């Protein structure tokens, strides 16, 4: 049995949806709303790895009892465990390149999550009754996972902090742009898990940080996003949306480097 616990098809949640649709394997979609803290309810599957996973709230793949958390490793798992479309093509060096992108994109995902949460989640949290919210947040473990929610309410993500994050993103996006200037796909001549990873994480940026991702600054990335959207599997994955605005669905994700 294969079940995917997920929310709106955006960022971390979007990755396994695309990979499973590419593989055309059937799975049970277990929808949960992390902004209502349904992931903390009894009955939601949990183990050490899912509780401590660095992307925090989601997604979770459960395959015959094995719980797979961490969205890039979930992509690798799906690529290796199921037949169908090859998501890890080529030789050892192409595989290396896809994994190296996974590392770079993990840092990008952390920054995108903060921009998205500041824009879309913070206003939702601010509308809620503060006492009730605090008591819900108090149930979140470990502490750094809770702190990522609380950080949205303590004023640290002011305009200046957010523009520093956008600048850091611009630096990483230039690398992606450079690679896509010589190649249609990130890890080599063929489509791979790296492209799924990149699309899921940066697709919200044209709306969140148009100053760093746009047709003038990053024309190849803009074309890449359009190319991804044409894939039937990507369309099917995006069609899981319930709100109709998946790219506004954010909860805290990985933590940016603590070194500054």
């Amino acid at each position, binding site marked *: 049995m294969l079940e995917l616990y997920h929310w709106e098809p955006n960022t971390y949640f979007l990755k396994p949806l695309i990979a499973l649709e590419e593989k055309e394997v059937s799975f049970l979609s277990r929808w949960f709303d992390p902004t209502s803290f349904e992931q903390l309810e009894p009955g939601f599957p949990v183990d*050490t*790895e899912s509780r*401590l*996973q*660095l992307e925090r709230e989601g997604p979770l793949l459960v*395959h015959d009892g*094995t719980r*797979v*958390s*961490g969205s890039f*490793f*979930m992509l*690798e*798992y799906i690529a*290796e*465990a199921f037949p169908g479309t090859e998501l890890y093509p080529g030789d*050892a*060096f192409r*595989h*290396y390149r896809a*994994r*190296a992108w*996974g*590392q770079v994109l*993990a840092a990008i995902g952390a920054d995108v999550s903060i921009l998205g949460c500041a824009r879309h989640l913070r206003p939702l949290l601010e509308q809620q009754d503060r006492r009730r919210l605090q008591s819900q947040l108090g149930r979140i473990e*470990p502490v750094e996972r809770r702190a990522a929610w609380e950080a949205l309410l303590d004023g640290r993500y002011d305009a200046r902090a957010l523009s520093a994050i956008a600048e*850091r993103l611009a*630096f990483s996006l230039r690398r992606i742009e450079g690679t896509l200037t010589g190649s249609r796909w990130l890890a080599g001549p063929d489509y791979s898990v790296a492209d799924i990873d990149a699309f899921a994480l940066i697709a919200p940026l044209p709306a969140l940080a148009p100053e760093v991702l746009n047709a003038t600054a990053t024309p190849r990335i803009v074309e890449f996003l359009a190319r991804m959207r044409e894939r039937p599997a990507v369309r099917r994955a995006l069609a899981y949306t319930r709100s109709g605005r998946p790219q506004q669905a954010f909860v805290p994700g*990985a933590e940016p*480097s*603590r*070194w*500054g």
Partner: protein
Amino acid sequence: MLTLYHWEPNANSGKPMLALAEKGVEYESRYLDLLNFDQHQPEYLRINPDGTIPALVHGDRVLTESTPMMEYIDEQFDGPALRPKDAASRWRMRWWMRFFDAYLAPSLSMIGWSVFVGPAVRQRDQKELAAAIERIPLPSRRVAWRKAVFNEFTADELEESRRRVMFGIDVLEAHLTAHPWIAGESYSLGDINGFNLGYALPLSQPQHCNDALTPRIMEWLRRIYERPAARQTWAKGRTQLASRIGMLERR
């Protein structure tokens, strides 16, 4: 032709060194002295423009991310398999390597840079140090060096790093109580990764990592230390950093 640019068998440099030794693959070793900023010299930046170590050069292929580099080494070369065959154990290996790389390593290295790297270079000419820092290509590494050299770590961030290290030690002890190795039943890249991070924990965190409190971690470290590949790799160390491994000798 295979060349590895590395520093001491420690942290990121030690990962490919130990993986290559386990596979029995010969390579040309190029030692860069991290404390002398060798990794920011123009000759090396031609190989890795980011100025970080390690870098593995295999023919015309250049690899600069140490964890994916280990998977490459396992996949590309003959020798004993260093990754489990089944997808679930592979996933577990990778999950733990990310936990090591992104949670435990930055905290341990923040402590290490504040007590070891910073003091080791701080006495040098201040102007030269400032110029050396200016030459660092990656903005994030520049911040790290500035903090280490000028002792700019805040008490809060060091305290948070110490808390995370202790938490990580507990989590690892529990994991090794449930499984003999990081990936589950067999020795893998996950153990190589964790060993590079943790081999000196009994020395740097003696009150949290010791035979009484964390017997599973101690036994795991000793089992890895006793492997011929680990002996061979740590013998390549040139400083006290690497010789700390001697404390894993059974008495």
